[in-house]
């Protein structure tokens, strides 16, 4: 396409030359400016484009992003770390636990990195990720990535990646209707954020879950609507520590914020939801959720080595 256009451009120039009486266009010089790929671009080709047919877009195109937010691009260094870690804690996990081709078929076609969060000041919420049409995953706030802070990264990025990927999967094969019945009547798409604990960082192990856990939800966002509940349950199950889960279940066993007592307590409902998720993943996708979780946990212990190794790989393309 580009070649055709430049060909026409040449014609234009010649045409201009002949139609102008003054001889001012004869000094044109024709050169080629090469846009060699950077080492990082080559690494992305080898690790995303070739194996997964995935466009890992770290150069932000705001014109194509949501224009109602003020967004900025990601720092190059953070993009590199994000690309390395997404491969290590997401793509390689499915390669090992399911099979090499799984994400090639079902994975996203594009990952778009955004440097800042998408803030909604009216709702006091921030978008951490989006999955569009089952093919594009957008990850926000990437400039805050802290390569050595696993709890933080888990909450903001890896939890988000698994969250968005589960959206992609359930958009292709619906999850069981039964899931939606367990906390029916307690979903609140408008005011779910009021249930969150504002006073504690999202990544903290000990948080106040009292506004949603007794109702059978793993997070405030899970209580917004069933499909978010479904992907939150799986993604938090994969990424959160045992200490975090034990604390969640302890609080889930207590009465609800308005004295609600759920059949079998909120803890029982959460366990039941996890069982539905496990069954769906195994029967519909041939994925063992506990193996996935085990694999991610093992890898989380070696994040720093993975980043170092990835950077060395990128350097090797220079």
């Amino acid at each position, binding site marked *: 396409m580009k070649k055709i256009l430049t060909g026409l451009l040449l014609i234009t120039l010649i045409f201009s030359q002949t139609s102008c009486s003054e001889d001012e266009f004869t000094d044109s010089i024709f050169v080629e400016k090469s846009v060699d790929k950077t080492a990082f671009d080559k690494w992305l080709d080898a690790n995303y484009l070739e194996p997964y047919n995935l466009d890992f877009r770290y150069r932000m195109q705001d014109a194509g992003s949501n224009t109602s*937010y003020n967004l900025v691009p990601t720092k190059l260094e953070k993009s590199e770390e994000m690309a390395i870690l997404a491969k290590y804690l997401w793509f390689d996990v499915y390669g090992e636990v399911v099979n090499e081709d799984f994400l090639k078929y079902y994975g996203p076609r594009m990952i778009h990195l955004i440097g800042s969060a998408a803030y909604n000041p009216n709702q006091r919420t921030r978008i951490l990720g989006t999955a569009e049409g089952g093919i594009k995953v957008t990850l926000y706030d990437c400039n805050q990535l802290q390569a050595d802070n696993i709890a933080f990264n888990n909450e903001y990025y890896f939890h988000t990646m698994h969250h968005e990927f589960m959206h992609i999967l359930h958009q292709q094969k619906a999850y069981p209707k039964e899931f939606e019945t367990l906390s029916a009547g307690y979903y609140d798409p408008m005011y779910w954020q009021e249930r969150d604990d504002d006073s504690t960082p999202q990544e903290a192990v000990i948080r106040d879950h009292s506004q949603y856990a007794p109702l059978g939800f793993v997070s405030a966002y899970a209580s917004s609507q069933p499909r978010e509940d479904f992907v939150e349950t799986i993604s938090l199950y994969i990424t959160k520590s045992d200490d975090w889960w034990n604390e969640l279940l302890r609080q889930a066993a207590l009465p609800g914020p308005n004295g609600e007592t759920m059949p079998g307590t909120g803890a029982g409902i959460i366990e039941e939801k996890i069982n539905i998720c496990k069954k769906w993943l195994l029967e519909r996708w041939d994925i063992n959720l506990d193996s996935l979780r085990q694999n991610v946990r093992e890898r989380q212990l070696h994040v720093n080595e993975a980043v170092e190794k990835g950077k060395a790989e990128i350097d090797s393309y220079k």
Partner: protein
Amino acid sequence: MKKRITYILLTAIISWSMSSCSLTEEDLFSESAAIRLNNSIANADTILVSAKNGWEMLYFPTKSSAGYNMLVKFDADFNVTVAAQNTLTTNGQYKTSKSLWDVIQGSGPILTFNTYNDVLHAFSDPQDDGVGYEGDYEFIVLSADSNTLKLKGVKRGTIIYMKRLAKNQSWTGYFEKLDSVNQTIFGRFSTTLKLQINGAEAFSLTNGNTHIFTFTPEGESILDSGYEVPFIITNYGLQLLTPINQESSSAQEFVLSDDKNELVSEDGNTKIISQPASDVLIEIISAKKYMNFNYSDEHMSSIIKNAYYTIDSTVSAKTRKLEYIGFTNNKGWGTSLAIYTTKTSNKIEGFLSFTISETSANELTLKFNNFGDSYDKNGKTYYDSYNLSDFVSLIEGEYIPTIIGHKLSSTTIRLTDKNNPNKWFDLDLK
């Protein structure tokens, strides 16, 4: 490996839209939009990289914010270096940052800074409130030649110019120059300036030190008719965000005159000038600042100096120290002559009510209001027992005021007695 074919052409082609050959223009515009687009992308790339010392970017985050200068150097390998020095985003320190750039195809060629640059994106980062300074980092290239690019922010629509930086201009020196230009225009106290069109005063310009002028049409009130016009300091003067179009003349760029006393538009028809000296003095005093006597040979004639000396020695004889005498606007006593003396931690300021009035065009009258029903007791003590009375009767009178130094920003006003050229003194902003 992907190759992009680019043309380097001499300036005649690069700036064809301004070419004198009208046939060429018609021919080019009869081609499809896609061809022209691709053509201009190639041009923009080439032009951007061609400035070996980079570009001066006159950046306005939004249409209602002050302008901020950046220097931007584009490399052929799509690295870009951006520098800035301002109080908003770099804490007054010179700062540079490297990132990537590209020219992509949108509804026209779009210059984008598509990885985070600590300097440039500081104006776009939503920060903690989700808003930040709301600046663009994707720009539609409206026009490009080898000296100037006219850009338009994709989201905010702000017009941003980039001008080729001279080869020998050091980057830190550029920001030093801006600071010096800013000092020359706004100095320590930003007084009202006047915008003159074809010799007639058309607007009052206030709040200049914020780099957002408030324009008030002459003879109207700032409340009813004032409106804001952001601008940016350049290394030769200043440039308004949007041109003022008045009486068939249009002015946007203003250059400091050689004597640094005024800013003149390109066509010479529009000027930004200072107010008359009397108005400058009255404005500073009304702002409750001090305009003090400067006790030295260069700043007062001998008649005044002798009277000042008498007070100084009287104060010394009473083992106190004379700190200053000057004019100010005091909360309790209004426009006053203030005198301040100290003795270790004992500090006493006294005020004598004065009237400073503009009696005719650039003529001032200083008048002591004497002691009425209420007065400042300290002022009266200084008047009665420290020989201030002689000084007061000496300085009462009619004066011709003049601005000493660069007129736009000077805060030194010389008052010369209307009838006695040997009686004069300077008042300096404290």
